C-alpha cells in the first residue's frame, strides 16, 4: 500500500510541476516544450512501476517497466534481428515500392482530367477499406518471408499516397499556370518546376500517414506465417510462452522505430517544403 501511496505522490508532484511549467513565464521556450511531455511520460512510467510492484500484479498480465528495460538489454541481438527483418526489409521495401507506384500512377492520372476524376473517389474509397485483411492472401502467394510483408505494406500505403498526390497535383491556381505559359514552359517543365513542388505538402501528408500503416502491415502480416524471425513472429510466440516482457520490449522497439520513421518524414518535409506557410 505504501508503494501505491508513493505512486499517488509522484503523480501529484509530476502534475504540479507541469502546471507550474505550462503556466509559467517561459512556457514557450523550446526546452520547456520538450520538458513538459518528458515529465509526463516519466511520471507514467514511475507510477506504472510502483503500481505493479505495490499491487504485485502478475507479470503475465503486465510486466514492470524495469523488467522490460532489462529485457531490452539482454535480448538486444534478437531485437535487432527482428527489427531488420520486419522494419528494414518488410516495411521499408514495401513503403518505397507503394510510394513509387502511387507517384507514377498519380502523374499518369494527372495527364487527363477524366482519369483524375475517376481515381480520386476510387482511391479514397480503397484507402478506407480493411486492406490489412489481404495479409493471409499475400502470404499464400508470395511465401512467408519478407516479400509477402512488403506486398501487404505496398498495397496499404499505395492508396493514401495516391489520393494525396493526385489532389496535390491539382493544387495550382490559374495565375501560376498562366505564368508558366507566358514563360513558354512545356508540360514537363511545368510539371517539374511548378506542379510537383506545389504538390509536395499533400504528398508528404500521404507519406506520413503511410509510415504507421507500413509498420502495422508488416507486423500483422507476420501473424499469418513468417520465418522464425521478425517482430510479429516474436510478439506472437513470446505471447504463447507468456514472456510478456519480450512482447513489451518489441512494443518499445516498434514505438521508437515508428516515431523515428515519422520524424524522418517530418524532417524531409521541412527540407522540401520550406516555402510552405505551415513551415514558416
Amino acid at each position: 500500500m505504501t508503494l501505491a501511496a508513493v505512486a499517488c505522490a509522484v503523480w501529484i508532484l509530476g502534475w504540479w510541476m507541469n502546471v507550474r511549467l505550462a503556466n509559467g513565464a517561459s512556457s514557450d521556450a523550446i526546452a520547456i516544450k520538450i520538458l513538459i511531455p518528458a515529465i509526463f511520460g516519466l511520471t507514467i512510467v514511475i507510477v506504472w512501476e510502483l503500481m505493479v510492484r505495490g499491487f504485485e500484479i502478475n507479470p503475465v498480465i503486465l510486466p514492470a517497466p524495469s523488467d522490460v528495460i532489462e529485457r531490452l538489454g539482454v535480448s538486444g541481438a534478437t531485437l535487432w534481428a527482428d527489427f531488420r527483418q520486419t522494419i528494414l526489409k518488410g516495411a521499408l521495401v514495401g513503403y518505397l515500392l507503394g510510394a513509387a507506384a502511387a507517384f507514377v500512377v498519380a502523374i499518369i492520372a494527372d495527364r487527363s482530367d477524366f482519369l483524375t476524376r475517376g481515381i480520386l473517389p476510387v482511391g479514397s474509397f480503397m484507402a478506407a477499406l480493411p486492406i490489412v485483411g489481404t495479409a493471409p492472401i499475400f502470404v499464400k502467394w508470395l511465401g512467408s518471408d519478407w516479400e509477402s510483408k512488403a506486398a501487404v505494406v505496398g498495397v496499404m500505403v499505395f492508396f493514401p499516397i495516391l489520393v494525396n498526390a493526385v489532389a496535390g497535383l491539382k493544387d495550382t491556381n490559374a495565375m501560376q499556370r498562366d505564368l508558366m505559359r507566358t514563360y513558354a514552359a512545356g508540360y514537363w517543365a511545368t510539371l517539374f518546376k511548378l506542379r510537383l513542388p506545389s504538390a509536395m505538402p499533400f504528398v508528404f501528408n500521404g507519406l506520413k500517414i503511410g509510415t504507421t500503416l507500413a509498420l502495422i502491415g508488416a507486423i500483422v502480416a507476420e501473424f499469418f506465417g513468417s520465418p522464425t524471425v521478425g517482430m510479429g513472429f516474436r510478439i506472437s510466440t513470446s505471447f504463447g510462452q507468456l514472456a510478456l516482457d519480450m512482447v513489451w520490449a518489441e512494443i518499445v522497439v516498434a514505438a521508437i522505430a515508428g516515431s523515428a520513421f515519422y520524424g524522418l518524414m517530418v524532417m524531409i518535409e521541412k527540407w522540401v517544403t520550406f516555402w510552405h506557410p505551415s513551415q514558416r
Partner: protein
Amino acid sequence: MRSIIPVMTIVAGILLLWLLAVIPMNMHLVADQAQRDDRVVTPDTPAARQDLGGITLALRNPGLVADTYSLTRPRLPAPQQVAVEMYDTIIDKRITSKRSLVYHGWVTLAPTLLGFAIGTGLGILLAVGIVYSRVMDRSVMPWAIVSQTIPILALAPMIIVVLGSMGIQGLFPKSLIAAYLSFFPVVVGMVKGLRSPDAMQLDLLRTYNASKSQGFWKLRLPASTPYLFASLKIGISASLVGTIVAELPTGARAGFGARMLVGDQYGQPLVSWAALFAAALTAAALVGLFGMIERITLKRMGMQAS
C-alpha cells in the same frame, strides 16, 4: 454527379485487370488438374511446368484458359466466383446460419459500433480538455501523437487474450481495440475544430460579453462540426479494421476476421475472399452513412459540406 462515368471506367479497368490476372495465377493448377484427367498438356511434366511462367503456360495451352475461371480452390478467384459466393452467403442463407455473412457481419459490427461510440466520446472529452487546459495540451498532446506510431493493431490479438484470461470476454475486448483506433483521429480533428474560430469571431463574442461556456456551446462547438465529421469518417473505418484484426489470430469463431482465417486454413479461398469483400462493403456503407449524416447536418447548420 459528373464523376460517375470516370469512376465507372476506373472500376471497369480494375475488374478487367483482375479478370486477366486470373489466367496466369491459376494456370499451373489447371494444367496439373488437366493432366490428372488425361488431357493433353504441354509441357507434360509438373517439373517442366514449374519453370514456365503462368502467361507462357497459358499461351501454350489455350484450350485450358477457360478452366481457370471455374476452379473450386483457385489461387486467385475470378470476380464472378466471389460474387456468387457472396450472393450465396448473404442473401441465400438464413441470417441465423453459421455460414451466413450477415450473421458474421453483425458479430463484427456490434463491437465496432460500441468501440466507436466509446472512442468518439472520450476523444471529444480529451479534445475539450486539451483546448481549455494548457497543461494537458503541453503534456498529453505529444504523447497522443507518439501513441499513434505504436502499431497497437499488431497487439490487438494479445490484448484480447489477456482480457480473456482475466475473465473479460465477448463484445468488450474487441470494442476496446476499436475505441483506441477511433480515439486519435477524433482528438486531433476536434482540437483543430475547436481552435478553428479566428480572433475576429472570438473578439465578437467578447464584445457580446459572452461567458466561457457560451463561447464553447455557441461558437467553438458548432465551428468544430465539419472537422468532427471528417474525423468520424476516418474513425469508423479505423474501428472496423481494428475489430477485424482483433478477430484474426485469436481463435475467434465468428466475425469477418474469423471467416478470413477459416478460409485460409481450410483451403477455401472463396470464403476468405467473400469475407474480405463483405468487410469492404461494410466499411464503405459506414463511411457513406456518415457522409450522408454530415451533408444533412451541415446543410441544416447553414454550412456547405465539402
